[in-house]
């Protein structure tokens, strides 16, 4: 008999509720996995409830071997400042997380054995894994975890995205962790006490900047430490040259806690081929890599044709093309008028954008940034595509003569997608000018462009991205959208409620987004990677995670 919860204790009432909802068909399998495991249900039990058997990679994995993976090798920082998934992937074999997010939507413990959430999601009890050691021989204890949480809550660290994930653990007055919100009753237990309910903490600490470091190494760039960098993982750094290559090797002087189930490879090399897919293709043709980080656009078919095996992840990663309501252009705010914004959205057929911009490799989205794979997604009636109506609305707003300048990145599909949108706006009779900028320049002003495209990665819960990007005081608000009702409904949706009530809240949020023409969101991307024959456990992860400690070569 498998345990139903990680702790072996009775199931959290919310998890029971989700199971009921799932059985009644009111919840998708993926959202059930996310929610149930967040509340401490084991993935195995969740699978049993969901009536499915998890897919396991077939065949045996041989010990040893070298994996050569194409991936950008960025200049590194301390983990809290990581801003690309690639950076998280580098240290993933050295620094582990408390919990991981899986491609099926579930959360499974890594450096924890289990966790429990109290009735109203204000208290988290984290039971740490016993017997885990740092590679210098120190025991991994609750002191390490407490030090990490304190570091994650520190808002004085410029560019740290962790405080946003810590929610109400951060004291807005001091900008540090709220006093008394963490307790360590013994070496292997950590208790978090939150002033308000929050169910996104587990998702937050599964994300790549939340790599757990040694208590004495908070805020340290672990690449600078070289081979002596402290970590709990099975690998150590051999060489790191930015823009070129990094080499990780199995640490011979350290016994990894999960050595029976992983650490197959002796050596992992990440090789940088830049961002041009043609160069990456050349590397594959030259047989210089065994695995590519991500395959985009037409190259998916090309790499298929070369006999590589493809893996796909459906995601809530997306691109949005948004006007900014508060940006001034020549002394006026062109997009402050809701009619202008709605006219723009009305003139664009998202299905066409998906076809032209991303070769139909994804699902059409509905301009509200809540994905069907998110828990609590509510289906709205289809949006009308009406260029004539859009022109009439634009005319009414007196903006027909205005020239819209749309900025975008010059990377392949981002550019193509924005071009497809611009073309449709021109068809509706609007004046459109396109400006294409390289990434190094583009991101300087990404929030301030009057009209531009931005890519967003997926987050496990639908409300996370709404909180990050669309509330009136959000740090990453790029639309200038500020709506009291939206803020309030979102706050209500963040507290636990049963799925039907929560879905009602979500429906309202989605409606507000559409009614206000906040964004043009053409599609949700499916993402792909390719590996050569014989590489096992390297499937595409929806958040681009490469857990090389579990990758191996088939025997």
């Amino acid at each position, binding site marked *: 008999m498998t345990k139903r919860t990680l702790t072996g204790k009775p199931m959290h009432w919310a998890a029971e509720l989700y199971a009921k909802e799932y059985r009644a068909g009111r919840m998708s399998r993926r959202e059930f996995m996310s929610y149930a495991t967040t509340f401490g249900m084991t993935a195995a039990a969740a699978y049993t409830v969901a009536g499915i058997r998890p897919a396991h990679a077939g065949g045996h994995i041989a010990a040893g071997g070298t994996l050569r993976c194409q991936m950008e090798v960025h*200049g*590194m920082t301390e983990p809290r*400042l990581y*801003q690309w998934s690639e950076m998280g992937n580098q240290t993933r074999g050295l620094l582990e997380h408390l919990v991981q997010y899986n491609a099926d939507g579930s959360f499974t413990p890594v450096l924890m054995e289990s966790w429990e959430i109290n009735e109203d999601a204000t208290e988290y009890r984290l039971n740490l894994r016993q017997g885990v050691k740092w590679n210098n021989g120190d025991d991994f204890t609750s002191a390490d975890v407490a030090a990490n949480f304190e570091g994650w809550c520190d808002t004085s660290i*410029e*560019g*740290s*995205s962790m405080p946003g994930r810590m929610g109400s653990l951060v004291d807005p007055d001091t900008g540090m962790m709220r006093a008394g919100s963490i307790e360590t009753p013994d070496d292997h237990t950590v208790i978090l006490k939150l002033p308000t309910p929050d169910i996104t903490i587990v998702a937050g600490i599964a994300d790549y900047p939340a790599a757990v470091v040694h208590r004495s190494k908070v805020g340290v760039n672990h*690449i600078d430490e070289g081979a002596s960098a402290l970590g709990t993982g099975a690998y150590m750094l051999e060489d790191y*040259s*930015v*823009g*070129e290559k990094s080499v990780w090797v199995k640490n011979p002087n350290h016994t990894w806690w999960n050595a029976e189930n992983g650490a197959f490879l002796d050596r992992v090399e990440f*090789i940088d*081929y*830049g961002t041009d897919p043609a*160069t990456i*293709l*050349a*590397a594959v*043709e*030259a047989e*210089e890599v065994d695995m590519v980080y991500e395959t985009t656009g037409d190259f998916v078919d090309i790499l298929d*044709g*070369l006999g590589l095996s493809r893996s796909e992840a459906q995601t809530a990663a997306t691109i949005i093309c948004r006007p900014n309501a508060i940006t001034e252009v020549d002394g006026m705010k062109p997009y402050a008028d809701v009619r202008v914004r709605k006219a723009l959205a009305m003139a664009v057929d998202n299905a066409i954008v998906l076809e032209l911009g991303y070769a139909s490799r994804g699902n059409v989205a509905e301009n509200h940034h809540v994905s069907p794979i998110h828990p609590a997604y509510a289906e709205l009636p289809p949006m009308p595509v009406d260029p004539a109506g859009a022109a009439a609305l634009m005319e009414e707003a007196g903006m027909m003569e205005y020239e819209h300048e749309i900025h975008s990145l010059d990377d392949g599909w981002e550019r193509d997608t924005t071009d497809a949108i611009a073309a449709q706006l021109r068809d509706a009779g609007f004046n459109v000018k396109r400006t294409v900028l*390289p990434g*190094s*320049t583009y*991101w*300087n002003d*990404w929030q301030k462009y009057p009209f531009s495209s931005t890519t967003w990665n997926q987050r496990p819960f639908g409300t996370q991205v709404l909180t990050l990007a669309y509330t009136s005081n959000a*740090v*990453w608000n790029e639309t200038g959208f500020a709506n009291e009702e939206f803020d309030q409904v979102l706050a209500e949706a963040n507290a636990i409620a049963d799925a039907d009530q929560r879905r009602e809240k979500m429906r309202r949020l989605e409606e507000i987004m559409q009614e206000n023409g906040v964004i043009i969101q053409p599609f949700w991307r499916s993402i792909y990677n390719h590996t050569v024959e014989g590489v096992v456990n390297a499937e595409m992860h929806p958040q681009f995670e490469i857990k090389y400690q579990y990758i191996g070569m088939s025997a």
Partner: protein
Amino acid sequence: MALFILRRFGVMILTALVLTFIVFSLTNLAPNLEKVAKFEGNVRMTDEQVASWLDRNGYNQPVLKRYGEWLGVAPGWTHMEEDGLRGRCIETGMDPADAPTFCGVLQGDWGKSTVFKDDVGPIVAERLGLTGKLMFWVMVLMVPSALLVGVLAGMREGSRLDRSLSTFSIASTATPEYVSGVIFITIFASSATGLKWFKGTATAAAENATFENFFLPVLTIALYGMGYIARMTRASMTEVMTAQYIRTARLKGVSFRNIVVKHALRNALIAPFTVIMLQFPWLLNGVVIVETLFNYKGFGWTLVQAAGNNDIELLLACSVVAVFVVLVTQLISDIGYVFLNPRIRIA
């Protein structure tokens, strides 16, 4: 002669100073500094965070002062922080009291690269080494074949051989690297044609260059320069072949072969020598494209990375290197010219 060389070095240093100052002021414009801050901190930093970052890292000073710091004639900035004194010359983990006041180029400190997170000196040295390797093979391929083509074409002006070789030279010079490189990759390195004789990327060549992975980039650069040198050699050769002494030799009944090898060749090679030396700066140009195309991490590729990310100190070092390469090759060509051509020595 010594004075001449000395004067040349003076010009070189002056040029380097002027050029680096221009690069320095351009890279230190406010929007570029914002870019640096966001690159170093986080792309999603707010304006206040950017301002505080720039202040803490010494970017908020007059440009001249900062240029002086880079040069090593102005004292490095210091900044009091909660965890002690921070400053340009204070390395992490160093006691501020031990830190030198000046740390610039004059003290041998080229600064730190923000992109590569390492000292600029070793980075530039290593990348130049890689580009040197590329250049060496380019020269080995380009110079002899260019001279051969030029001499063959120039022997008999207007002959069929001349016409076909000239067409080839003009075609190769007229095809920029980014066109020929892409064509070569498609034909010789991809499954599109199925040939796959070579590799379409030279990434592995940095450590272990083989004919397979290194030939295409070498060929791409060499072809471009080759046409130009061949044309120059041809012009010089035809001129020599119409000279009085060649006609005399012919009238005396010297064989055509001997006329070319013994009498014409040496004189015909004076002009191409200058051209070949001038090719070095041109090649620096070409490697920027070819190294990026073939993902070979040499000097050109580094320059692209530095410029794309506004890596101030690396860009400055690259400019110094560029000035140095241009002026040194000119110096060598001037001196070499004197030795090759006695007329200049006498005049």
